[in-house]
């Protein structure tokens, strides 16, 4: 029942926000998100670390009960549920500093988005997963296209059509797999665990591998499917960008772990190297472009593209290190990237520019912002004792185990990451003060309340990674049995 309440509560909260509307909208939305955080926190602390799906909920839905509304939280889902639960209230709080037109709709859409994301991460039925996977697009599309920047219509349209296009292939693969299953009663089954047990020929595995891969690769995005990403991140209003980069791109990585690897292990053996090579190209390519960026938001967008490449590579290495690393890194990256976008938003809205060359010397006026920024930045560049280190270390270990050379190239991410992040910090925060940065106001109370939890998380994951790793380990081990 806990899972069901996690799934339904944001919808209720969103409807309440719509019903009350007006000035109270944001407070109610924030409160709703806090309750949801409480629910997911409860799941986190009462989760028993084994391979089972817990707090499960199961209800016959369609086709005489062979497609079920079935959801639960296992070790793989848990961290993402926690991530979604944690980030949504912070994203809502970070939006408080702006006044958006039609606030009720704006905040309700964020909550709808949260409901859909929770659904993706807890679904135990393949079609339920697909439904949520698609449903998540609609609120984010309207968020980005209604409140975004100048070029928003064309950019978000590309994003929408591109991602739906990808997931249609997954739908075909899922329907195909569904008809492959058979249960005792002569019916089919779409439970994800039933799909794991299918025996598929090498040709079938190849086709299904690519159908899944395209869907998830567009979502993450993996090179060369990333062209929608930088523009969409830049044009979206910051809360939507945070949702996209912080949580939504994890849907792709999660999908690979949950569906692709265990269903078509043979396909991964055949094509996994291709996938890793593409991911590694993405790492290097994204990082090099990030180094050259002048626009802060765009820089963070490319850094996010580079980081997710490493996660994809780690996952496709099919090693326990790689998958565990990806799970922790998803949590860590979500936290860091939301923090970074918030810093970018604060700087951009106070200086009215996002261009790095026009900034400088902000640190003189802002001791607090400097500290928060530095902590998040160190997390992003994977400094030991921060959250990024744990994830990236495990991911790199996984890729190394798979192939030394690819591992070495992927390892460049740490160096490149340090280059573009420190360059960002240096250009924005140090140097000479310019006209627009003179008298820069330090972070206010409510802004601090976004940063503080994020910074705590950076250190918590960095210092005691085991409190997270021990939760995911049995589930990952269980998944690996299907993969091997």
């Amino acid at each position: 029942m806990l899972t069901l309440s996690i799934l339904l509560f944001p919808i209720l909260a969103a409807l309440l926000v719509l019903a009350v509307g007006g000035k109270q909208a944001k407070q109610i939305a924030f409160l709703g998100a806090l309750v949801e955080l409480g629910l997911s926190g409860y799941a986190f602390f009462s989760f028993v670390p084994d391979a089972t799906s817990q707090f499960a909920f199961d209800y016959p839905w369609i086709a005489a009960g062979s497609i079920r509304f079935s959801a639960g939280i296992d070790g793989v889902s848990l961290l993402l549920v926690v991530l979604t639960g944690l980030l949504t209230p912070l994203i809502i709080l970070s939006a408080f500093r702006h006044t958006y037109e039609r606030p009720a709709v704006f905040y309700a859409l964020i909550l709808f988005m949260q409901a859909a994301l929770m659904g993706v991460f807890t679904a135990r039925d393949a079609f339920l997963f697909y439904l949520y996977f698609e449903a998540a697009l609609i609120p984010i599309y309207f968020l980005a296209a209604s409140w975004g920047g100048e070029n928003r219509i064309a950019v978000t349209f590309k994003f929408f059509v591109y991602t739906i296009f990808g997931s249609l292939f997954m739908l075909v693969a899922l329907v195909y797999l569904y008809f492959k299953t058979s249960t005792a009663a002569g019916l089919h089954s779409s439970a994800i665990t039933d799909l794991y047990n299918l025996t598929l020929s090498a040709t079938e595995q190849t086709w299904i591998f690519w159908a899944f891969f395209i869907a998830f690769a567009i979502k993450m995005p993996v090179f060369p499917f990333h062209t929608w990403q930088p523009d969409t991140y830049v044009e979206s209003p910051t809360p939507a960008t945070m949702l996209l980069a912080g949580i939504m791109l994890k849907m792709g990585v999660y999908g690979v772990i949950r569906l692709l690897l265990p269903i078509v292990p043979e396909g991964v053996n055949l094509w996994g190297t291709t996938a890793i090579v593409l991911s590694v190209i993405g790492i290097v390519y994204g990082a090099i472009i990030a180094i050259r960026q002048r626009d802060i938001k765009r820089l963070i967008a490319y850094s996010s593209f580079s980081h997710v490449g490493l996660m994809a590579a780690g996952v496709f290495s099919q090693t326990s290190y790689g998958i565990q690393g990806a799970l922790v890194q998803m949590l860590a990256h979500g936290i860091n990237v939301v923090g970074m976008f918030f810093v970018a938003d604060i700087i951009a809205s106070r200086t009215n520019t996002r261009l790095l060359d026009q900034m400088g010397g902000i640190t003189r006026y802002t001791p607090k912002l400097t500290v928060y920024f530095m902590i998040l930045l160190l997390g992003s560049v994977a400094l030991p004792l921060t959250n990024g280190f744990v994830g990236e270390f495990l991911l790199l270990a996984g890729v190394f185990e798979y192939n030394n050379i690819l591992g070495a190239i992927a390892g460049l991410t740490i160096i490149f990451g340090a280059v573009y992040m420190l360059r960002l910090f240096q250009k924005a925060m140090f140097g000479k003060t310019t006209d627009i940065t003179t008298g820069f106001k330090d972070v206010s109370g409510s802004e601090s309340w976004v940063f503080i939890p994020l910074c705590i998380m950076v250190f918590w994951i960095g210092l005691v990674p085991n409190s997270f790793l021990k939760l995911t380990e049995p589930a990952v081990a269980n998944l690996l049995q299907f993969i091997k």
Partner: protein
Amino acid sequence: MLSIILLSVFGIVLLYLGFLKSRAVLLPATLFFILIALGAGFLEWNKSYLYFGDMLLVSNTAILFTGIVLVSAFMVVALSGDFLDDEAAQPAEYYAILLFSIVGAIMMIAYENLIMLFVGVEILSVSMYVLTGSDKRNLRSNEAALKYFLMGSFATGIMLFGMALLYGAAGSFTLTDIKGYIALAQGRPSLLLYMGVLLVLIGMLFKVSAAPFHFWTPDVYEGAPTLFTAFMSTVVKTAGFAALLQLLSVAFGAIYGFWWITLAVITGLTLLIGNLTAAYQDSFKRMMAYSSISHAGYLLIGLAALGQQSKQALVFYSLAYSVATIAAFGILLVVAKQRVSDGRPDDTYSAFNGLSRQNPLLAFILAVSMLSLAGIPLTAGFWGKFMVFSAAIDKGMVWILVLAVLMSAVGIYYYFRVVIAMYFREGSSTYIQVAPFYRFVLIAATAITIILGLVPGLFQNLM
């Protein structure tokens, strides 16, 4: 087949009601008649029997398709309030013709004898020719009617020729007899039969506007008064597909190997032409015409992959498509009236600019319709596509499926242009007022779309 008799009588009654001075009674009377016919149809639920000298077959499938036709007709009539204000219009005659055309549609759905199919097609088609041209003073409406009439008659002729050949081969017009003949011939039926199958198929495919027999569709849809376009694109299509399903599954089921390739090629063509051309349209109405072609393509997948899934898939898809289409045309009717260009209502995409501010409810309804037609999850349209795709996978028709998936992505492009116009483009800021009953019908259509999207199983229990 109580509904056939009732509707015929009601049609005549309506003609007499036209003599009344007050036109106000016509609309509620028509709606009432349709509801009675709907109720009468469901009285025969679970009673499968032949009727009228073995000419018609009453079955649950037929009742479901009839139900979809009647629900669509109910909605179209309910949205027709404007006729009553139009001095030049003859509402009594329009409504009577609509009821008669439904009789034709029901005959197409429930026929057991090919003669009945022919009579049904003719009743429906002739009614549609008249209604298409009902905007008498409009040149385009006249052109559309003439075009539809000429090409339609030609197609009917081909179909009739095919029926004659079938009779020549099997010695009977009855579906079960033709089936018996094919079984008896043990895989070597006469050439006449194969010719007959193809010609009848061509005739029917014309009616459901499958490519390459689709050329009339955009012009006719654009020229006809919007309300009748809505009727045409839902009722005619549903009846046509019900007839094809009956024909292919009952009579020609045993020679599946012969016709499925033809049908699969036509399906592919229809999907390609419908979707790619729709993407280039500037007029919403023409886009909807091509979209109706593309939906004919998706429905044809269900037929080309004829199997256990097909019936359910077609019923569900027809319903999902019909309610979404009617809601879309219903909103076009309201919106197009606001802006007149060249003496005609503006039916381009730009007519929808800023609708979300002019009337958020209408914008929401149209958005849901567009999402459903595009096949986005949580709408009925998604499950319709899902079922059709399932049928294809069950038969291993992966290539058609890949094409259909690619074309769905194209579909998202042109349906979303409407959503973008409504929500993200600037338009005038005058509030658009809608009559309460009109609004109610549109909300009902949206409710069906969303409820079926959330619990598609609700409907499956009827199958």
